[in-house]
């Protein structure tokens, strides 16, 4: 089945376009989203993508063209204006950053919906398909879309790599960066612009409503697995591509669903898996380590208790019953058996436990 799908991926023109396009989107938004997430600006992606909708509609209304580059430029301009409005609102009013994001997101999105409805009510048929910008439709991707997406995404990633060290400074310690003489505000604008590019190239495939997930989720998942910025970024790109390709191919082939939701389901799967099983940070890992620590502590306690009992009877080579030990640290039998298995405790009678030489050496300082 999977082999068949792989074969189909290579031979089927539509499917190949869909897969390559979604991969390009996933890599770009995943990698650049890492910086947004690390700077605690996750919601910025949501605002940009929603703000882009009126740009798409206006670009079509003004030019009458549905060429990908035209619509992407419209989306990018609107998304960028949206972020400028957010910054303006924060600077000039008492409204806080998160509220400003919410306002811009809903106002721009509302305007976008109005324009979209207006376009769809027009008599000519050329408007068909603009509504896919809402929830995304990978199956409609064409070769020319793919080229546009790949070139723009490639440029964004290249710029990110060229300014890597400066962007790292921006994300970690912008004040220090300023003291070194780097123009941190310009770098902030650069990073936001790259994020805008990463988002707008994905809008047609993933849709404005859920595109933010492609910015936030891969980075959140990748952060679970590694502590190095380069690896987090690379891994986020891979996760983004994986979710993008899987979701897009599923939506184009198997189920009759818009692409955005299927991609988001895939990336959510990756996030949940990462939250649970990732080494060190994962929930499962922490639970296991907690159990191991508790068990170790328990064995050490029982060993200490046996020693304390033994010290009370100097010279006498006698054991103590499990009940006595349990009085000191309740339910000691499993621990006593485990200690016996490890050769730190021996059984003198049916219910008489004593330290072995190595057990005593372990306790005594």
């Amino acid at each position: 089945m999977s082999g068949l799908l792989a074969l189909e991926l290579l031979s089927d023109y539509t499917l190949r376009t869909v897969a390559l396009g979604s991969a390009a989107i996933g890599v770009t938004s995943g990698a650049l989203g890492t910086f947004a997430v690390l700077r605690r600006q996750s919601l910025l992606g949501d605002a940009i993508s929603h703000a882009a909708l009126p740009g798409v509609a206006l670009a079509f209304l003004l030019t009458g063209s549905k060429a990908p580059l035209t619509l992407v430029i419209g989306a990018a301009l609107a998304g960028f204006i949206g972020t400028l409005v957010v910054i303006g609102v924060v600077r000039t009013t008492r409204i806080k950053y998160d509220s400003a994001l919410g306002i811009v997101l809903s106002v721009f999105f509302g305007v976008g919906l109005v324009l979209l409805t207006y376009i769809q009510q027009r008599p000519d048929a050329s408007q068909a398909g603009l509504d896919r910008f809402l929830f995304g439709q990978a199956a409609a991707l064409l070769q020319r879309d793919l080229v546009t997406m790949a070139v723009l995404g490639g440029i964004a990633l290249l710029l990110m790599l060229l300014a890597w060290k400066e962007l790292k400074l921006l994300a970690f310690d912008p004040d220090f960066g300023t003291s070194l003489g780097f123009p941190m505000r310009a770098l902030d604008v650069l990073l936001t612009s790259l994020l805008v590019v990463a988002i707008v190239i994905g809008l047609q495939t993933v849709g404005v409503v859920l595109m933010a997930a492609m910015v936030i989720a891969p980075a959140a998942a990748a952060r679970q697995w590694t502590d190095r910025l380069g690896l987090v970024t690379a891994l986020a790109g891979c996760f983004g591509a994986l979710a993008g390709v899987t979701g897009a191919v599923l939506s184009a082939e198997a189920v009759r669903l818009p692409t955005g939701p299927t991609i988001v389901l895939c990336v959510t799967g990756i996030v949940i898996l990462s939250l649970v099983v990732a080494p060190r940070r994962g929930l499962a890992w922490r639970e296991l380590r907690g159990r191991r620590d508790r068990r170790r502590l328990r064995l050490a306690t029982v060993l200490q208790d046996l020693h304390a009992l033994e010290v009370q009877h100097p010279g006498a080579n006698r054991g103590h019953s499990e009940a006595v030990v349990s009085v000191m640290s309740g339910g000691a039998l499993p621990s006593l058996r485990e200690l016996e298995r490890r050769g730190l405790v021996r059984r003198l009678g049916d219910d008489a436990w004593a330290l072995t030489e190595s057990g005593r050496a372990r306790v005594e300082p």
Partner: protein
Amino acid sequence: MNAVEVTDLTVAYGDKPVLWDVDLEVPQGTLTAIVGPNGAGKTTLIRTVLGMVKPAAGQARVLGRPYAEQRQLVAYVPQRGTVDWDFPTSVLDVVLMGRYGRLGWGRRPGQADRAAARRALEQVGMSELAGRQISQLSGGQQQRVFLARALVQEAEVYFMDEPFQGVDATTEKAIVELLRTLRERGKTVLAVHHDLQTVPEYFDRVVLLNVRRIAAGPVAEVFNEENLRHTYGGRTPFFSQNGT
């Protein structure tokens, strides 16, 4: 020539003055503490000299020239609470950031930079933690990493914002040693400091600041009860200065 020279510096956020007509001279090769209550403008003073805050009036010079021309001669240690210590990076990587200024755009740190970073970590007693993820550091270790980052800048003048904030006794001792080593090598340190008791022991000079400069000079001359009362006393220090 003075290491730092501030004249008539005035900074306001909105209509609220944060620094008012502050003059300051820091001689080279000295350890100077900036002391004052919360909201006295201590951090703002440093940030303004370093060009991060635009003053309403006045100017600041570092070794005789505006800061923008002297960046290579200046190192900066921000308060360690200003960054996210869960950021995915290692101790060595943070220290290497001190080299970014001299590297300039686009160039990555090389072997020489790494060697310098390791030497700096050795100076602050952190060589063994070079590869450690920064989220696993204690408060004192975080502070040492920031100091090491300033050391690799190989500067003449060091601006430090509360380097002793929340560190353990061992780290405090290590930092004091480091400050003295810097002074022996003729460097200048200007540090925001909170613990009044240790001022005479750790520093040569002190600046008493509360929006206005209350007093500045050698510790023995100006670090007295009267000046401290002026600095910490009144509720409206600026007006009480004028009124009484």
